[in-house]
């Protein structure tokens, strides 16, 4: 299908700023869904609050735009009640790892079959440029006029430690890689996390003098390198891209089916 067949054209234009990376991620996501040949009726997109969360409104799937930070909790209810559905949860910095951090680690611990996309632009965009738990120290934000002192989470390490069974990272520069990673994440049985570094030229870029959108995107080419690449070996300070975790572990909804079997056996006995 054409990509436009996956969007609700009635609700365009979207609200993202010119140069925002979120549109690239939306495009990558729809390509991934298309290449996987998934039926639109089988997909539920659940999101929270923020620029990233608006993705849910634009896509022609079952869409649930919820509360700040709670997208994974809503998604858990949808998934456990209808395990045959494919759950995709796009989240921003705050949704995923500030107000929603608890749900993130517990969804990973349960290994419930949900694909979490962390759209990491290191800033709260919708509220106008406050620092996030992914900003890291030394950046300028409206709530850090003297630069941040807060260390950042490493999304990949956090997801791995919490028990996610698929963990990957890409950027808006590496669109083809992103499509591939999203396909693998969606196909993975279990909790999958894909962190995508994405530019916010309006707030992060302008305040931190990272230039226009095109310069910010191109920067990802220079500050990242593929896992196993020579570039990464030579310069470990680069941010690694690729798949970090891909392991099998009992999935939560499948395990619950066994609970149902055991409960029925006990009742019958």
């Amino acid at each position: 299908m054409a990509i436009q067949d996956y969007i609700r054209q009635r609700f365009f234009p979207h609200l993202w700023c010119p140069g925002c990376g979120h549109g690239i991620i939306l495009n990558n996501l729809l390509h991934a869904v298309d290449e996987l040949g998934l039926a639109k009726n089988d997909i539920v997109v659940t999101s929270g609050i923020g620029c990233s969360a608006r993705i849910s409104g634009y896509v022609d799937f079952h869409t649930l735009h919820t509360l700040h930070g709670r997208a994974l909790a809503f998604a858990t209810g949808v998934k456990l009640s209808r395990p045959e559905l494919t759950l995709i949860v796009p989240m921003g910095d705050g949704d995923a790892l500030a107000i929603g951090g608890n749900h993130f680690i517990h969804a990973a611990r349960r290994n419930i079959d949900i694909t979490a996309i962390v759209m990491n632009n290191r800033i709260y965009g919708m509220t106008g440029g406050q620092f996030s738990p992914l900003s890291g120290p030394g950046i300028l934000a409206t709530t850090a006029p003297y630069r941040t002192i807060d260390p950042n989470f490493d999304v990949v390490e956090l997801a791995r430690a919490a028990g996610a069974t698929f963990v990957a990272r890409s950027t808006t520069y590496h669109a083809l890689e992103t499509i591939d990673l999203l396909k693998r994440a969606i196909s993975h049985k279990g909790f999958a996390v894909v962190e995508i570094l994405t530019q916010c030229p309006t707030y992060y870029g302008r305040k931190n003098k990272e230039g226009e959108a095109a310069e910010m995107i191109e920067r990802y080419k220079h500050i990242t390198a593929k896992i196993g690449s020579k570039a990464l070996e030579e310069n470990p300070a680069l941010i690694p891209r690729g798949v970090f975790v891909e392991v099998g572990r009992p999935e939560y909804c499948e395990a619950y089916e066994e609970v149902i079997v055991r409960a029925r056996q006990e009742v019958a006995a």
Partner: protein
Amino acid sequence: MARKVRFVQGNEACVEGALYAGLSFYAGYPITPSTEIAELLAERLPARGGRFIQMEDEIASMCAIIGASLTGNKVMTATSGPGFSLKQEAIGYACMAEIPCVIVNVQRGGPSTGNPTHVGQGDINQARWGTHGDHNIIALTASNHQDVFAMTVEAFNMAETYRTPVVLLFDEVIGHMREKLLVPEPGELPLVERLRTSVPKDVDYHPYLPREDGRLPMSDFGGEHRYNVTGLYHDMWGFPTSNPKMVSELLRHLIDKIDNRVHEITRHKEHFLEGARYVLISYGASARSAIHLARERRARGERIGVIELQSLWPFPREMIREKCREAKAVLVVEMNMGQMLAQVRAAVADPEKVFLANRVDGKLIAPADIKQVLRVIQGRGV
């Protein structure tokens, strides 16, 4: 087949009522004095093919049941004061997105941690106004286990009928006390099932376009209609809007769908009320003491009766005004600082004749406590 007679806690009566009503998904977090509800459902739901999940916190529990309701399940969560506070944002979401769900609050002492193991009725106003913004809510209660069962069934029925969260406000005494429960046969109590749209697939379905009777047929997530659900102001497709006309219509619809049906939603019982000069108004565990006192006094020829509220919100203003018209004095019996008292005073023609008999020390209000206040009102000294 003989009706099943059980000797149960109130929390268990609630579980029986929920299963009778067709509960198929429960999410919760342990909290005293409601935990038995989660424990019993963890055992009972899977054998029926339902789902139980213990979530990471109270907020997540509320969010999970909303998600599961959207896929077509009858859903419930149970909690107590602190957890009820945490759930409020998501309860507001369920009001705004019009998603049927049932929230049980087995009340304990508050505010804050208060007294987890002792009784209180201090969450009445929170049930009405706990979440932000103009909204409406249905809250039901019960004073005995047969009614806990019946009102739990009613809660599910109303949640489906009005597409709204319904709060069951029990209290620690009702939750933990044991008494007899007759579990009705299937079919004995009417059940309301989800109203699903008749719009065929591939035809534009409007999840937020009310029918002529005001009801909004639903379509299960994962089914044939793809639509958007949001906590933002939304149009008939569920897509965000800031169009002033649409916003105004939405807000008025959320209020009116319940306010216009107060007479069909509200429930109460009358005990010894005929010709009563003194009217006691009470609910939950407090009502047991009020009824006890009225029975005792009636036996001595005193004209005293009880209005037992089984629904607290929407408040049955007209009924209270009417039933209290001839009363010399009205005594509101509750375990808080006068939350229903304020409603009763606002409802009656002469608020100066409405008095409060209360306890807020974690002990069940006793007939003797009510007698003391009654003596003062009746001019028989302190």
